C-alpha cells in the first residue's frame, strides 16, 4: 500500500497533462483514499506502541481471520442500507444458522448413521446453514417489501426471535466437537499453504491487471476519454503490490512447531529437522475475497445492482421505471441472510463449537463497518470495498487496543466514538464536495 504515494509522487512534476491534477488523472475515490489513510495510520500507531508486534505476520494473519465473519455480512449490509433499510437481526440469524449446523453435525446426522468425519457431513451441514439464513432473510424481505412493516421493526423482532429459536434448538447447550472438514473453514486450521497461496495471489494479480486493461479498452472502443497510461500503470502496480505483499505476509507466518508435529503425526510421519511451513492464505479469507468480488460485480455490473442503487436514490423513480421494488427488497434481504449463513460457517468453524452467544453484537459491528465504510443511512450510496475496509478498521482498533493493554470498557468507548467521528467526517466531506 505504501507504494502508491511513492510511484505517483515521482510523476507529479511531469508535464504530460498539465491541465489535470494528479488526483484527477488517477481518478481515485477520495473517500477510499481517506479510509486507507486512516487504516494505515491506525496500523502504524499500534505498531509503534506494540514494538512492531501489530504488523507482524502473525498478528496480520490473526487480524484477517478475525475480520472475515463481520466483513462478509457487512457487504450484504451495504445493499440493505443502500435501499434505505436496516437489518438488526444479522447476529441472531447467524446464531440460528450456526445452531442448525451444529445440530446437524453433532445430533441429527449421527442419528441418520452419518458420523463425524464422513465426507458428506460438512457439505450437508453448510448447505443447511446457508439455506436457513437465506430463507429467514427472504422472509424478512417479504415482511418489509410486501407487508410494508418497517425494516427496523421486522429485524428488531428477528433480533430476539432467531437467537432464542436457536436456543430452543440446542437447549441452550454449547455444541462440540464439530466435523474436521467443517473446521477447515474457520481460519488458522484451514490454509492453502505457501505454494497454493502464491498461485492464488498470482491469479489475483493477473485479474487485477486484466481489469484495468479491459476497462481501458472498453472506453477506447467508444472513444471516451481515458486516464493517462502512467496512471493506469500506477494503479495496476499498486494493486499487484498489495496483493502479492499480502500473500507474502501470510506465508511468512510459520505454522507453530507443535501443530506441525501433530499434522505430520496424523499422516504417520515425523517432522524433518529444520522443516518449517508458512500458513498462507486461510480458506475463510479466500471466501471473503470471492464474496467481495461477487458483491462488487453485482453492485456495479448487474441490473440487480443498478436497481438497488436506483431504489435507494429515489424509490418512487425506481417504481415508475418499472422496477419491482418489493421483490427487490426480498432479494436484498435474502442475500443478507445467505451471507449470515456463510458467516455462521466461518464463525462456528473458527470457534470450533456452537455456543448460544455466537455472533452477539455482530449486528452493530456489521452496521458500523458498513457506515464507517461510507454507506449512507439515507440510502443510495455505499461501496463493498468500503464496508470491508470498515470492518478491518474496527477489528484493528479492537485488537490493537487489546494488544496495547487498553481495558475493554475503554475499548468500547473508543470504538463507539470512532463510529460517530467517521460519519461526521463523511458528512463534512460530502458537504465540501457537494456530493449528496
Amino acid at each position, binding site marked *: 500500500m505504501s507504494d502508491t504515494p511513492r510511484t505517483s509522487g515521482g510523476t507529479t512534476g511531469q508535464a504530460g497533462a498539465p491541465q489535470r491534477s494528479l488526483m484527477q488523472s488517477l481518478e481515485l475515490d477520495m473517500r477510499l483514499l481517506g479510509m486507507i489513510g486512516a487504516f494505515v495510520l491506525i496500523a502504524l500507531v499500534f505498531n509503534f506502541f506494540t514494538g512492531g508486534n501489530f504488523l507482524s505476520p502473525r498478528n496480520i494473519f490473526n487480524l484477517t481471520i478475525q475480520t472475515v465473519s463481520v466483513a462478509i455480512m457487512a457487504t450484504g449490509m451495504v445493499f440493505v442500507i443502500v435501499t434505505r433499510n436496516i437489518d438488526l437481526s444479522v447476529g441472531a440469524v447467524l446464531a440460528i444458522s450456526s445452531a442448525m449446523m451444529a445440530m446437524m453435525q453433532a445430533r441429527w446426522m449421527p442419528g441418520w448413521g452419518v458420523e463425524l468425519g464422513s465426507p458428506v457431513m460438512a457439505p450437508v451441514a453448510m448447505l443447511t446453514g446457508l439455506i436457513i439464513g437465506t430463507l429467514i432473510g427472504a422472509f424478512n424481505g417479504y415482511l418489509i417489501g410486501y407487508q410494508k412493516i418497517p425494516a427496523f421493526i421486522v429485524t428488531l423482532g428477528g433480533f430476539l426471535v432467531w437467537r432464542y429459536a436457536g436456543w430452543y434448538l440446542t437447549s441452550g447447550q454449547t455444541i462440540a466437537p464439530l466435523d474436521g472438514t467443517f473446521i477447515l473453514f474457520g481460519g488458522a486450521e484451514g490454509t492453502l499453504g505457501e505454494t497454493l497461496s502464491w498461485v492464488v495471489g498470482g491469479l489475483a494479480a493477473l485479474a487485477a491487471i486484466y481489469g484495468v486493461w479491459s476497462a481501458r479498452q472498453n472506453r477506447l472502443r*467508444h472513444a471516451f476519454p481515458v486516464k493517462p497510461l502512467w496512471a493506469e500503470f500506477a494503479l495496476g502496480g499498486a494493486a499487484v503490490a498489495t496483493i502479492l505483499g499480502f500473500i507474502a505476509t501470510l506465508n511468512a507466518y510459520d505454522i507453530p512447531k507443535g501443530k506441525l508435529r501433530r499434522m505430520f503425526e496424523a499422516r504417520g510421519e515425523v517432522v524433518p529437522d529444520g522443516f518449517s511451513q508458512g500458513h498462507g492464505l486461510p480458506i475463510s479469507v479466500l471466501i471473503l475475497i470471492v464474496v467481495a468480488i461477487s458483491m462488487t460485480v453485482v453492485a456495479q455490473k448487474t441490473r440487480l445492482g*443498478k436497481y438497488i442503487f436506483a431504489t435507494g436514490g429515489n424509490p418512487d423513480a425506481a417504481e415508475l421505471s418499472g422496477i419491482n421494488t418489493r421483490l427487490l427488497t426480498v432479494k436484498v434481504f435474502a442475500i443478507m441472510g445467505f451471507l449470515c449463513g456463510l458467516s455462521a460457517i466461518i464463525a462456528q468453524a473458527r470457534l470450533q463449537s456452537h455456543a448460544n452467544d455466537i455472533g452477539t453484537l455482530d449486528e452493530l459491528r456489521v452496521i458500523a463497518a458498513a457506515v464507517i465504510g461510507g454507506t449512507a443511512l439515507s440510502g443510495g450510496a455505499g461501496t463493498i470495498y468500503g464496508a470491508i475496509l470498515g470492518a478491518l478498521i474496527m477489528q484493528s482498533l479492537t485488537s490493537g487496543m487489546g494488544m496495547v493493554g487498553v481495558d475493554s470498557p475503554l475499548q468500547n468507548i473508543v470504538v463507539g466514538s470512532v463510529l460517530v467521528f467517521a460519519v461526521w467526517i463523511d458528512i463534512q466531506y460530502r458537504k465540501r464536495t457537494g456530493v449528496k
Partner: protein
Amino acid sequence: MMTVDRTGTPLVEMRDMSIAFGGIRAVDNVSIDLFAGEVVGLLGHNGAGKSTLIKMLSGAYAPSHGEIFIEGQKAEIHNPRDARHYNIETIYQTLALADNLDAASNLFLGRELVTPLGFVDEAAMEAETRKIMGRLNPNFQKFKDPVSALSGGQRQSVAIARAVYFNAKILIMDEPTAALGPQETEMVAELVQELKNQGLGIFLIEHDIHNVMKLCDRAMVMKNGARVGTVDVDKVTDDDILGMIIMGKKPPSAY
C-alpha cells in the same frame, strides 16, 4: 398550425376513468382521446385531477373504474412496465430521476443495455446517452456526474431524453417547463413540435396559458376531478380557457 386528422381510430382512448383515494374521488368519470400527431393539453387548478388521470395511463395508479384503448385495442395497464410495453412514455413533474446515478443510468433505468454475458454495458449506455443528448441538448457534458449535480434544465433534458429515446408513440409530459428558464422552455417547445410532426401523440399538462395556446391542438379542462369541457384551441381565446379553469364556464364551441 397543422390540422390533425381525427377521422380514424384514436391513438389513445380513455373511457369513463374514475379513481378514489380514501373516499375522495380524485378523478370522476372522465373520458379523453388523443390522435397521432396531436398535442392535447390538460388544464386545471392544482388538485383538479390531471396528474392522477394521466398516472392511470402511465401505470402508476390502478383505476377503480374505466377502460383504456390503445389504437382501438383494449389495453391492460397495471404497472409502469405495462405502459412501456404499449410505447407510452412519461415525463413526470418530479422528473422521477434517481439523483445518485449518472445520466446514462437514469436514461436506461429499468431497460439497461446488457452484454452477451448479461452484465450491464455501461460504455454502450454512455455512448447512446451521448448520442441522444447531442441531439436534445448539445451543451450537456456532465455524463459522469450523478444527476443531483445537474441544473434544473439539465435534469429535465435527461428526463426528456429517457422518454424520447425508446421510440415512444404516446408521450405524457407533466408540466415539462415548470422548472425551466425561458431558453430551455423554448427548447422544450421546439421538441414538442418536432415529436408531433413525427406522429407522436402527446398529453401535455401545463399551467402556462401562453404555452397551451402555442403548443396544443386541443385542451381539456378539469375541475375537482371532473371534466369541464374540451376545446379546439384555435377556436377559442385564452380568456375562454381561463374561464373554464377558474369558473368552470364552457365556451360555445366546447364539447
